[in-house]
């Protein structure tokens, strides 16, 4: 399965990436894209910017392991994961997960699986800048719960 994994400071274009997954192919019946976007408010207080730090080399390797796991679980025909790093402003794209399959079920499930794993396993850290303070984002237990549920079920192929 063709898989694209990129860590980059530059922005990405969702439409371009989705089109690349299906270009020249007629076996793909479904593409699901998820885009994570920097919010202008966090916990009820305005955010001026977000800084993303990553572990070069391991981030790509860890995401590749998640993609391999997704490919083992669902009949995927393509996947693209792009995660940005550096300083991002409210409204900026943070992350793209795009999955392609013959049918929507696998594409939806794999995209959600990849996002859940990305949040709790990929070595990336967010720092929030506010008008009067700078702080690292705390890991959410709800994200661990979201990731753990994938170890409790083996979803159907469609």
């Amino acid at each position, binding site marked *: 399965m063709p898989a694209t994994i990129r860590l980059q400071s530059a922005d990405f274009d969702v439409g371009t990436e989705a089109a690349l997954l299906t270009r020249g192919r007629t076996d793909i019946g479904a593409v699901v894209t998820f885009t994570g976007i920097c919010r202008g408010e966090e916990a009820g207080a305005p955010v001026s910017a977000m800084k993303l730090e990553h572990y070069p080399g391991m981030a790509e390797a*860890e995401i590749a392991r998640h993609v391999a796991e997704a490919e083992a679980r669902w009949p995927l025909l393509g996947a693209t994961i792009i995660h940005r790093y550096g300083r991002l402003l409210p409204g900026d794209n943070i*992350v793209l997960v795009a999955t392609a399959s013959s049918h929507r079920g696998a594409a939806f499930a794999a995209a959600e699986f990849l*996002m859940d794993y990305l949040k709790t396993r*990929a*070595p990336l*850290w*967010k720092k929030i800048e506010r008008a009067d303070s700078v702080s*690292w984002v705390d890991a959410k237990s709800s994200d661990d719960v979201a990731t753990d549920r994938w170890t409790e079920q083996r979803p159907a192929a469609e």
Partner: protein
Amino acid sequence: MKLLYFAWVRERVGKGEEVVDPPASVATVADLMAWLAGRGEEYAFAFENAKIIRAAIDHAHVKAGTPIAGAKEVAFFPPMTGG
């Protein structure tokens, strides 16, 4: 052995990477954190709550009890918050 630190672990230690040569008694990831914590105030601060710090050996997540023998690169970081 090369050590890497990320996010607030990096900020507390005061550097992003360094090369260390721990004694043979330092066998596991947990041993390495305890040894590092004894290297000075900044390390003690970084590793004061070692239970919440995550580790990776050569680009793969590992648990605190994992042996470090043969590791080229060991990284320490807080729970991840990407996505």
